Structures are given as structure tokens and as C-alpha cells.
């Protein structure tokens, strides 16, 4: 979970993080590091206001400044940076999608991840340790070979593993014939992995701030003033702010904030939980997921096993955990890895997901002329963070989508162009 941001210091100097600055600061016992970003009071007016200081909003501000030269920008966050889903997720990064639009978008994101620490001069600890989807049946194997082939046609790495290869790669997995979920093989994306969630928010915040973006925390958006089909200003808990263009990136609160602007969205909010075990020595060096068990696990750099499973399966804005899905996740863990049965669980938490009706995101224009939407991330928006900000910045700056997000429009639902990876139908909680 994220830490609170340090108090404001108007005299922040941007320091390039390097071995030299590390050594220099060692002499002052690391007590003189400047703050990573300013915390200025809001100005009365900005060219662009981004609502939501999660990874997506901060990345959008960063790329607006870096790629499009738009720097009179504010990011408004009602709590603290990354205190939403960015600081609550299980940090899995991958681009193993079947549909072309998703595949190209998430692959662009993965390519940005691969160079993100260098680009931001901030270590986001991207760790391409591989993401392995287990196949438990012939049908699973068929589906994974189909998905893997689609990925390779799109130029994305994918390997179909047999049982022996899975066993060698994940020695603690129960691959025996008696296993509760017999393993028959798996689909591996070696370039996938994990990253440090807080660092992504902080790195983008620092990068945006150093280019002139105002990052304003403890600033809740409570309403909009309209003139014709435009929004002219934003009511916030820190006063009224005029804005030329507005980008909405509030994830699980999209329905609530869109309603302030009179919009309904094809989105439901649902709680998703995760939990971690007590830390242990390195035992699992890849991400293991099981579609059959609705479960996935990886090991954090601190040694904790990070477990995730299903949604609670009913509309919820409660950012907290409830026992039934926790029990399900632990049962799945022990079924797949009987050797973990005596591990104690350390903590559980929940985040509010913006579940879209086809499981794919919306990045694009809205029915209001100068309001842009970034929402519908379901459980997969952390890995999307770089490409989401990159495409959203392009869409806001140019007033039209980039080719990479052209399919992610709001009107695709009415037009029958839904992007439903699983073919699960219009049930937000089924994706």
C-alpha cells in the first residue's frame, strides 16, 4: 500500500537520481534529499485538468507535457497519490491478449514498461519474471494455443509449455496425477512480470511535476459548471478551477464522477481483493495464474506471496475485503501448492474496480465537447498505466484518438463493436 506524500516544500530542486547523487547524499546521511514533487495550491485556471491522481492520471499529465508540450496542467486527487487502485493492485504486467485492439494496446504498454525506469529516472522495479497461465484440461490447452498463436501473429512473445516444462519451471506446483487441479501445460509470456506499484505513481508524478504540472492532493471534485455542451469549470474541495479540457481518470469512481457531469457509463463498480502471506525466502520466481481456479500468485521482492482471485461479484464501492473471496483464494493456493498450507496470511485489502460491460477499457471522447474519458479498466489497469497515459494524452492534446486507442470508444457498445475477450456477454462482473 502507498505511503502518504511528504509535506509541501516550495523550494524543491529537481535532482537527477544517479550513483553520483546517491553518494553525495550519503555524506549528509540521506537527510537532504529534495522532495520528489511540489505541492502548490491550485491556480484559478488550467489548459488541462486531469481528475484522479492514480497511475493513469499522472501518466497522462507526464505524457501531455513530455510528448505534446502541454504543461499548464493540474492533476486533482481527492486523497493521496496512488491511494486508489494503483497502490492496491497485485502488479502483474503482461500483454497476452487475444483481440487485436487489446493486443496492440497492451503490447505498446509492455514496451513502455521495458524502458520506464530509465525514461522516468525512477526505479519502478519492473521485473520481467514471466507470466504463466496453467492449463488444466485439453480444452484449456486448445484455448491457450489459440491465444498464443494470435499473440505471435501480432508479434508478441508466447510459448505453449508441456507438463514437464511447467514442472521444471515451478517445482513447488502440484503436478501429480492426484492434484486437485491436474496440470497439463501452460501458456507462458516470458516478457511479462511485475513492477512496484507505488513507484509508478511517484515516478510519473515526479516526471510530470518537473515539467511544470501542478499535482494537487486532498482535492476532491464535487461538481462541474456547464455552458452549452462544454464544461467551463470544476468545483472542488479546494475551490473552483476553470479548465480548457478535462480528463477523467478516476477508475472505480468513474460512475460517480461522470454522474456529476450528467453522464451514464457502461460501467459498474465492484470490489476486488488481494492478500499477502508472511514473507518467506525466495520460492516462486514467476507469476502463476489458473483460470480454472480463478486464482493467481506471485512472490513480492519482500518475500510475501501475493494472492488474488475473484471479484466479490456484487456492485460495491467498499474499499475493503470480505471473507468469502479470501477463503476462495487461500483454498486455491493450497490446492495448487500444498506446500504453502502452513503459511499465515498477513493482510488483506480491497479496491473498487471500474468493470466495463465488455471487459475492455474506454479511452476517448465523451458526449461533452471538452470532457475525455479514461475508465473501464477492470482488474487489468495497472499493466495498462504507461500506454493508457500515453494514448489519453494524445487523445486530449489532438482531440482525437491515437490508432492504438481508436477501438476503445464509448459508442462502441451502442454500435455493437464490443471488445469482449472472454465472450462473457454484457455482465460487468463476468469479465
Amino acid at each position, binding site marked *: 500500500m502507498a505511503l502518504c506524500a511528504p509535506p509541501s516544500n516550495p523550494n524543491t530542486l529537481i535532482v537527477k537520481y544517479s550513483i553520483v547523487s546517491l553518494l553525495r547524499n550519503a555524506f549528509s546521511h540521506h537527510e537532504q534529499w529534495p522532495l520528489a514533487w511540489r505541492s502548490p495550491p491550485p491556480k484559478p485556471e488550467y489548459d488541462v485538468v486531469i481528475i484522479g491522481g492514480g497511475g493513469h492520471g499522472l501518466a497522462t499529465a507526464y505524457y501531455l507535457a513530455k510528448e505534446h508540450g502541454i504543461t499548464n496542467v493540474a492533476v486533482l486527487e481527492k486523497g493521496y497519490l496512488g491511494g486508489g487502485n494503483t497502490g492496491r493492485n497485485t502488479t502483474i504486467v503482461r500483454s497476452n491478449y487475444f483481440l487485436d485492439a487489446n493486443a496492440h494496446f497492451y503490447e505498446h504498454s509492455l514496451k513502455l514498461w521495458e524502458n520506464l525506469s530509465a525514461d522516468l529516472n525512477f526505479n519502478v522495479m519492473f521485473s520481467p519474471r514471466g507470466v504463466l497461465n496453467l492449463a488444466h484440461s485439453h480444452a484449456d490447452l486448445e484455448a491457450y494455443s489459440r491465444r498464443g498463436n494470435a499473440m505471435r501473429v501480432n508479434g508478441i512473445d508466447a510459448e505453449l509449455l508441456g507438463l514437464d516444462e511447467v514442472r521444471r519451471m515451478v517445482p513447488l506446483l502440484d503436478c501429480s496425477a492426484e492434484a486437485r487441479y491436474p496440470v497439463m501445460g501452460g501458456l507462458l509470456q516470458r516478457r511479462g512480470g511485475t513492477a512496484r506499484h507505488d513507484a509508478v505513481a511517484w515516478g510519473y508524478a515526479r516526471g510530470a511535476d518537473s515539467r511544470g504540472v501542478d499535482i494537487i492532493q486532498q482535492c476532491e471534485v464535487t461538481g462541474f459548471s456547464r455552458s452549452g455542451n462544454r464544461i467551463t469549470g470544476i468545483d472542488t474541495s479546494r475551490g473552483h478551477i476553470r479548465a480548457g479540457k478535462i480528463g477523467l481518470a478516476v477508475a472505480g469512481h468513474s*460512475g460517480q464522477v461522470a454522474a456529476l457531469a450528467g453522464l*451514464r*457509463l457502461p460501467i459498474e463498480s465492484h470490489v476486488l481483493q488481494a492478500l499477502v502471506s508472511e514473507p518467506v525466502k525466495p520460492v516462486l520466481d514467476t507469476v502463476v495464474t489458473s483460470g480454472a481456479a480463478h486464482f493467481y500468485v506471485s512472490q513480492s521482492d519482500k518475500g510475501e506471496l501475493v494472492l488474488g482471485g475473484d471479484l466479490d461479484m456484487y456492485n*460495491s464501492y467498499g474499499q475493503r475485503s470480505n471473507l468469502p473471496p479470501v477463503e476462495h483464494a487461500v483454498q486455491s493456493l493450497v490446492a495448487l501448492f500444498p506446500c504453502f498450507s502452513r503459511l499465515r496470511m498477513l493482510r488483506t485489502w480491497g479496491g473498487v474496480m471500474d468493470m466495463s460491460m465488455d471487459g475492455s477499457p474506454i479511452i476517448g471522447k465523451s458526449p461533452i465537447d471538452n470532457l475525455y474519458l479514461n475508465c473501464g479498466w477492470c482488474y487489468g489497469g495497472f499493466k495498462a498505466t504507461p500506454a493508457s497515459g500515453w494514448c489519453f494524452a494524445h487523445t486530449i492534446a489532438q482531440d482525437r484518438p491515437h490508432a492504438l486507442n481508436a477501438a476503445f470508444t464509448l459508442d462502441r*457498445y451502442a454500435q455493437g463493436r464490443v471488445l469482449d475477450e472472454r465472450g462473457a456477454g454484457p455482465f460487468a462482473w463476468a469479465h
Partner: protein
Amino acid sequence: MMLIHCPHCGARDVTEFTYGGAGAARPADPAAADDPQWADYVYMRDNPRGLHDELWQHSAGCRRWIAVRRNTLTHDVIATARPGELPPR
């Protein structure tokens, strides 16, 4: 733990139920409804942070569909009834 009071069986654990989503009304005259009306019914949601009227099936009990009024922030179950019979707010 969330308890839902099934109008037929009494208070039961949430794990006995399957969620059916917001009980939006189908267009009254399906043949007359146009594409935007259908798209609205199938895809668009109010998604409130607060009171929400929804359908649940008591799938591990009497298997009947019931209407539930619930607070999506606190998870408090405010009222349950047969479908269409929730009291007005």
C-alpha cells in the same frame, strides 16, 4: 459477513446467493424499441455509490429470484422482497 433475508427462506449467508445485477426494466414494447434504447438497457448503468436495487437468486436455497435494496458503500441490506415488490424509496 453479509446476510440476505430471503423472503421465502429467511436470513441466509451471501454465499448461498448468485448476483443478478441491477434489475433494470426491459423496454416495455420490445418490437418498438430502437437501437439506442436497447443499448441503454443492455449496457448503461446508474452505478450509484449508495442505495442500489438489484436482483439476486437464492441459488443454494429455494432457487427463486428476489429483489434486494442494498447500500453499495456499506453493504447494508436495507430491504428484500419478491421481484418488483420492493417498497418505494
